[in-house]
Structures are given as C-alpha cells and as structure tokens.
C-alpha cells in the first residue's frame, strides 16, 4: 500500500472540511443535541423511578456509543459521497490508486471526523450530566473498538450500495443506523425482542456491546469472550464489506457504470 496515495484521499477530505464550516458543524452538532436531549431524559427518569438504578450510564452512555458508531459509518460514506457529488470518479480511478488505498483514505477521514464527535459527546456527557465510565471499566475501549470496526464495515457496504445503484440510492444509506437500532438493543435488553429479532441481533456486533453495557451498569460480570464474538463478527463484516465493494467496483468497470456514473445505470 502506498501511503502517499492514502494521504491524497484523506487530504482532499481535510481540505473540504477546512474550506466550508457547513461541513464541520454536523460533525458535532447532532451528537451534541442528542447528548443534551438524553441527558435531561435520564435525569428525569432518575427522579421518577425508584432509587438505586442510575439511567445515566445505561441510557446516556448507550446513546453516546450508538452515536459514535453512526458518526464512524457516516464519516466514511460522506467521504465517498463527496466524490459522487463532485462527479470525481474518473479523475480518481484513472490514477495509479488501488481500491484498498482509496478505502483506507476514507477510513482515515472517518477516524478524524468521528473522533471530533466522540470528544464533544464525552465533554458534554461527563461535565454537564455527570456520566462516568467507571461502571464500564476497561471494557470501554473494546466497546468503542467493536463499534468503530462495525461502523467502518457498514460504511464500506453503504458505499458499495451507492456505487452499484447510483447517486439517488444515497437515500438508503442515511437511515441505516436507525434501521439497525431496534435489533441491537441500544435501549433495552435483547430478551425484550421476539425470537427472530434476537437471531438477527446475534449477527450484529453492536448487540454484544449494548448487552455488555447493561450488564456492567447493573453490577454484573460481562465476559470478555462474549465481546470477543462481537469483535470477530465486526472484523468478518469488514472483510465481507471489502469483498462486496471490490465486486461492485469490478462490475462498474466491466459494464461502463464507473465511466458513465452520472447516468445512474448502464441500461
């Protein structure tokens, strides 16, 4: 892998963020609003329910982690969309750049943009609403890692979807985190779900994270091996998403879709 090529892709995204404040605001605005909304919600729940259960680490912490996952995914897809919006595929793909280098450049961008969102969320949730990660202990890092890897996998898969179906299919990508959230139990235990949804949940790495969060907050013990399944699934998802992206790219090169992308289809 040529790191200069990766840097070129990441630098393009950096210039875009640097050049337009409208791109920077969404990196922290929506997650900040979520923190404020759920921060007050958890305060209210703490005041009306029986003493002993703290909703702040269970709910606000879960929202923080879920928003982080969504920011990772959208950080990657937005980078890809920038090339769609500026009709830049011909300029980018008629170069010595490999597909792995291109995606790696988008991953670097996603790391930077999602880190900004995470820092803002941590700042607000800890200073304003007293969220403490003491209950999570050392598991906080692997929780974040699993969600980061799954966000990358889903970002790559979403980009493949838009490459295959055309620019208008971008609409499918934005609601994906909302579509997944009922299955992974961000707000409730997986046992709440009907059996078929629980089976789907077992295939989704974030399910292991949120079950772990609830177990630890309730004072229980959460096995690292269980989270290991989540980690392994997230890694497998990245491999699968990369494979799908490569297949779609090859299809686009074979059929002429890449060269005539603005037409949205080759038929």
């Amino acid at each position, binding site marked *: 892998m*040529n790191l200069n090529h990766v840097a*070129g892709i990441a630098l*393009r995204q950096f210039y875009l963020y640097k050049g337009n404040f409208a791109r920077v605001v969404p990196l922290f605005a929506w997650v900040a609003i979520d923190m404020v909304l759920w921060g007050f919600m958890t305060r209210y729940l703490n005041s009306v329910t029986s003493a002993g259960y703290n909703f702040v680490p269970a709910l606000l912490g879960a929202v923080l982690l879920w928003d982080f996952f969504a920011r990772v995914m959208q950080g990657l897809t937005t980078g890809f969309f920038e090339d769609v919006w500026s009709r830049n595929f*011909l300029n980018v793909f*008629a*170069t010595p750049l490999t597909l792995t280098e291109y995606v790696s450049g988008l991953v670097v961008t996603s790391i930077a943009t999602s880190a900004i969102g995470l820092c803002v969320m941590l700042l607000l949730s800890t200073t304003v609403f007293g969220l403490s990660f003491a209950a999570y202990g050392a598991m906080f890092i692997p929780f974040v890692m699993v969600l980061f890897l799954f966000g990358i996998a889903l970002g790559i898969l979403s980009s493949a979807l838009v490459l295959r179906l055309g620019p208008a299919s971008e609409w499918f990508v934005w609601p994906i985190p909302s579509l997944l959230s009922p299955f992974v139990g961000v707000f409730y235990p997986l046992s709440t779900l009907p059996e078929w949804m629980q089976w789907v949940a077992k295939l989704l790495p974030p399910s292991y994270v949120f079950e772990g969060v609830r177990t630890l907050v309730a004072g229980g013990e959460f096995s690292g091996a269980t989270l290991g399944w989540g980690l392994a699934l997230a890694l497998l998802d990245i491999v699968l998403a990369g494979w799908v992206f490569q297949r779609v790219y090859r299809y686009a090169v074979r059929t002429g879709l890449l060269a005539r992308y603005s037409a949205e289809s080759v038929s």
Partner: protein
Amino acid sequence: MNSGSLDTLVLSVTALRKTYGAHTAVDGISFDVRRREIVGLLGPNGAGKSTTINMLLGVLQPTSGTIHIEGTDLGTQRVKALSRTNFAAVYSPLPGNLTVAQNLRVFGLIYGVKGLSARIEALLEEYDLKRFRDTKCGVLSSGEQTRVSLAKAMLNEPRLLLLDEPTASLDPATAVDIRTRIKAFAAKGNSSVLWTSHNMYEVEAVCDRVLFLARGRVLLAGDPKTLPREHGKASLEELFIAVANEPLALERTEAP
C-alpha cells in the same frame, strides 16, 4: 497497423474490443503511438473514441484485446501502467470545491509525484495559474479550468497524455494557447499524446498522425495533411464528413 520498434512505442493497442450486449462500441481496433508523437483520434459522435479513451484510462474493462503502456500491460499491471499516464477531458473537470493548489496537491500525492511542492509551483507558473492558486476551481472560466486540468495532467510528467476534446468550448485565442502548450510538451520530452477533437483545423495544426474511427473501427489512418487528398477530399473536414456519412464507402476504398 502496429509498427515501430518496442523501445519507441509508448502506447500499443491490439485487437481492442468492447461490447455492451449485442452492441459493439469498439470493434477490435489496433494502433500504436510512438514517442514524441501526437496522434489524433477522430470520428463522429458515437464512433467509439471516448470508449477507447476510457479503456486506456483503466476505468472501462475491454471485452477483449490488450493495452500496453511503455510495454506494461494495463490489464495485469494497472498501477504501474497508470502511473505513466494522465489525462484531461472536458467532461471531467477537477472538483470545483477545492482550490487550484489543493487539487494539484491531492492529485500530486495520488500520482506519487516527487518534489511535489516545487512541481506545483512550476506548473502554476507554466500554465499562468499563480493568481488562481487559492481560487476554487468551480469559479474559474472554462479556459482557466482547462489550464488547471492540463496542469494536473502534467503533474507526473506522463509518458502518455490522453486528451479528450481539451479545447472544446474554448475561445480561439485560449484554444491556440492550449495547443501551443501541448505541442511543446510532446516536443521536449519522451512523451506522446493521444488527442480527440472535432476541430479539424486544430487536428491538422497539431497532430502528426490521425486515426479515423467509425462504428468502433479504425477506418483510415495517416498524415492529416495528406490524407484528405489520398481519398479525393479537399480538406480534413470534408474527409471527416465523408467518414461520418459514408463509412462503408470509405471502408471499401481502404480494402486491399
């Protein structure tokens, strides 16, 4: 049609074919481009010029045939082959939301240009773009955008420069300026240029050799200054019209 010794060949295309279902866009064409040569790829709309250019750029997979750039097979050694190539096309402007200098830096990194800062400065000077260094490409005029695209195309000092209608939509003065720069580029180094254009005056002034494409096939090839007379036409434009309207008649003329 392939000729010339291997060390002088920059581009070698053999039996290149592209089909979309029952439609054949490019029908087994073969041609070479030699060092320091400017070759015009001419033909009516839909003749297969852009399809050919897209295959040479690696963004469209041929159905069959091979493309070698300085002896490197584009199909099997894409990265190496494309590192020696660059292009400018009127339908593929650089992102309008980056400045001129930012675009050159981004693509300089992607093309692996050594001494990038110095190279960017030299190109800004050469293409009279210094005053636009921090201007977003989207607000530049057509001529200025073409100069930026050409500066980007020269970043890696390509051995093969592909130009798809580089002077379309430019005023005559700007077009002359662009043509002069490209001729100078081909004359000074070890590079060659494959150029598509619908401006026959321009083709005659710039190209050492032309290939006429019609219905996906190379119908005629030769010196743009003598080719019209060889086919009983007064000018290259007249020959172009004949190729567009009566390709079969010309094909029969060419047949042994």
